[in-house]
């Protein structure tokens, strides 16, 4: 596949950004799952490169990462997997900084960014790399034409937000609630406020953390988001498949259905309930 511009994914209608952990439970399964997610309507794939210490993740994704590592996923295998994907949407690499830093023969992010760009990655989300420490990765991304996506948290101050927006290309990852990743039943009350203060920012805004249903996707978009990011809800389906020893294509089918539901929610034109 060839690398595409991340921001383009947001041009048509509200985007669906779908996360799975690469190698959970195998590279081949991930390939099928990613393709199913795209078939279901995903506009961006956020593909997790599993790290042994996933401090920003909730239990669901922690377990997914453990399955992937146990199955032997490595940065090189990850890049092979990316290369082998037959999808026409951008793929963002979600990982922790140490893996980026260690890759190759010299310390520092350059070698991994180059290899990722070469494999077809469009950008990075690095949850343990706040803007303050992002200089070297930002520079490497610029050099190779990749986007570096920052996460804006409910706690982010105006001053920090400004610094992030200075370096933002692609889209902004709006963390919809406090805490770590994980599917929730309800949208956080914080989401509208979080989006509100980004109203003037000239980049697409995608909301993540806790979205698991079409209805939630609809609410988030109605609050002003340009896209929704979903991860744990898919991973729950994968975990269930592993537990029940379901065939990969059955799991892929379920992922496709959920993606379709989410995409439908995200693109529904119904106004948000409060404004009725």
């Amino acid at each position, binding site marked *: 596949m060839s690398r595409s511009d991340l921001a383009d994914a947001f041009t048509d209608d509200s985007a669906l950004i779908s996360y799975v952990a690469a190698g959970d439970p195998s590279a081949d399964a991930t390939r099928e799952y990613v393709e199913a997610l795209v078939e279901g309507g995903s506009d961006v794939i956020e593909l997790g490169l599993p790290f042994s210490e996933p*401090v920003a993740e909730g*239990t669901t994704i922690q377990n997914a990462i453990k399955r992937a590592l146990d199955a032997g996923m490595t940065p090189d295998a990850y890049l092979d997997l990316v290369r082998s994907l037959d999808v026409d949407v951008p793929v963002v690499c979600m990982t922790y900084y140490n893996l980026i830093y260690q890759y190759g023969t010299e310390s520092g992010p350059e070698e991994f960014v180059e290899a990722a760009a070469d494999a077809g990655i469009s950008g990075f989300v690095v949850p343990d790399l706040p803007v303050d420490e992002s200089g070297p990765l930002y520079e490497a991304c610029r050099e190779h034409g990749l986007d570096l996506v920052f996460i804006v948290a409910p706690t982010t101050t105006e001053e920090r937000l400004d610094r992030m927006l200075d370096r933002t290309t692609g889209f902004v990852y709006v963390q919809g609630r406090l805490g770590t990743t994980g599917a929730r039943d309800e949208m956080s009350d914080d989401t509208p406020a979080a989006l509100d203060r980004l109203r003037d920012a000239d980049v697409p805004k995608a909301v993540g953390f806790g979205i698991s249903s079409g209805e939630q996707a609809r609410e988030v978009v109605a609050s002003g988001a340009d896209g929704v990011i979903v991860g744990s809800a898919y991973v729950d389906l994968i975990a269930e498949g592993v537990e029940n020893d379901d065939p990969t294509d059955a799991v892929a089918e379920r992922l496709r259905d959920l993606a379709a539901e989410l995409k439908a929610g995200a693109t529904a034109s119904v106004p948000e309930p409060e404004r009725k």
Partner: protein
Amino acid sequence: GKFGDYGGQYVPEVLMPAVEELVDAYERYVLDNEDGFVDDFRSRIREFGGRPTPLSHADNLSERYGFDVYLKREDLLHGGAHKLNNALGQVLLAKYMGKERIVAETGAGQHGTATAMACAYLDMPCEIYMGRTDVNRQRPNVFRMRLHDAEVNPVDVGSGTLKEAINETMRDWATNVEDTHYVIGSVVGPHPFPAMVRDFQSVISEEVREQSRERLGELPEAVIACAGGGSNTMGAFSAFVGSAALAGAPEGTQDAAPDVDLLAVEAGGSSLGVDADEGYAPNSASLSTGTEGVLHGARTKLLQTGDGQIVESHSVSAGLDYAGVGPELAHLVDEGRVEPVNVDDDAALEAFHRLSREEGIIPALESSHAVAYLEQYDGDGPVVVNLSGRGDKDLDTVVEESTARDIDGAPTMEVFEE
């Protein structure tokens, strides 16, 4: 927030504002003694914690080695280890900051216990995260935390040990960051933790300097401390390095003393090196053998695979069993100011028995590593060994491991055979 190339603040954005708030509080209260914070801390760690701890001359070890050995008795601090210096400092700081709730992770339970203790004393609600496996094998420490009215939240994910407990505590902090302070237990984590924890622990080396002047008439030739995360290490070294920055230190105790050798004794485990295929290191010697990387908020030396996956470390001492190390220590090692050395599990067990038998002091298995290094030390003394904690918590492990490994100098336990 940097120590050479090490340190930094590699944390999720959601926590960054809290980290920045903490930096501000650290600078105002700890460095500048605003509102008399440091005076309050010093008074409480003295009165509640039992500082100063003695510097004991080890008569029998000195005779054995032919040079004077002194033991800095952190084993006599309330709670049985140096851990309280930091826990009390941070909980008190959280109170000054107006925080209403404390969370902390714990592995073997020592840091959790110290934090729970400080919270009971300072009347702060407290929740401790602890892996399920650790909960089950460290019952006495769980009892202690519960007795101090801390909630203990068992973490059922993964292997149910320290790593999962850290993740869950981060998750709690990330969720409740507005009113909650996370008491990190060592000189690790994002800035200001490594500096702040060092400063709270620097009372150790402050006292060593004062006591050396009084008792030895000079500074020691060397200070030896065990290094896991490195909080007792930095506590024992910082006043000699000149990096301690806690307000109100007695005059002359914080100037760099470059002539004093600083030896950080790591857990050599069963052997050095990393088995990348198995994701396992049979040691915890990150200072001696680790490579640079980013973990738990800071750039430091780590036990990791070539890919950058953190490996499972190992030590017979649960308290040293950590794949990272404080960034300042990593820097001091690179600078040549601190010499990293290591002793293996068996040597540590032998030292545990030697100190118990020869000096009437049962050391923590962590501290036994520092004591063990005396067997290799080739200076003329005097030497100060930081006895970071007492070994009551390690009795079962030591008796079991000593029998299994047929450790030299371990007493028989025939008394139990009827």
